[in-house]
């Protein structure tokens, strides 16, 4: 597609439930990133995938968070046993190679835990 597509755009879920967030990067982009943005805050790095290399998971806040990227394309971020502090906008971005042309961000998934 022309841009990075994320779904759903909004998700409200009860505390304790699991959620899956999806990201469809720009076709041909080898690198994919997940960031989290809490209300009025900056972008918190979560994880990146690059080609067939092992992902850098160093930003995942707890073992309740996991992500996978299938076939070098679509990625899913899963949050298990959601907590209220997980409420945030989850942004996905992709880039060609190391991003010398910058990252293209999706519009994000606004996750609200009630």
């Amino acid at each position: 597609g022309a841009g990075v597509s994320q779904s759903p755009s909004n998700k409200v879920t009860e505390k304790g439930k699991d959620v899956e967030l999806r990201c469809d990067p720009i076709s041909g982009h080898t690198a994919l990133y997940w960031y989290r943005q809490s209300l009025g805050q900056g972008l918190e790095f979560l994880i990146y995938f690059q080609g067939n290399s092992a992902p850098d998971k160093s930003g995942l806040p707890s073992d309740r968070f996991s992500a996978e990227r299938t076939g070098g394309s679509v990625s899913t971020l899963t949050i298990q046993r959601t907590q209220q502090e997980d409420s945030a906008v989850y942004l996905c971005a992709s880039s060609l190679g190391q991003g010398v042309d910058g990252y293209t961000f999706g519009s994000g998934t606004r996750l609200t835990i009630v």
Partner: protein
Amino acid sequence: QQPVQSPQAVILREGEDAVINCSSSKALYSVHWYRQKHGEAPVFLMILLKGGEQKGHDKISASFNEKKQQSSLYLTASQLSYSGTYFCGTDHTGGFKTIFGAGTRLFVKA
């Protein structure tokens, strides 16, 4: 290590200039700059690579001082459309892990 941005917020009148700074405590390989409007995704402005270069397009330019481990974004003759939050992102290894600052909120009024 999260880069430090300053100022946290700035209000300008249309036509005025602004400088946003981004400092790191570690040696920098590259610095990204993005602008995010309320409720929208961040949009890439430019990237500066190790080497102390300066870049620019239109009335927005940036510098990268490798020795001082900092970058500055220059907005000249600001327009209403420049309003938004500006983020710098830093990478220290030439890899893929870009860490973003807390952002600088810029508001341009007529």
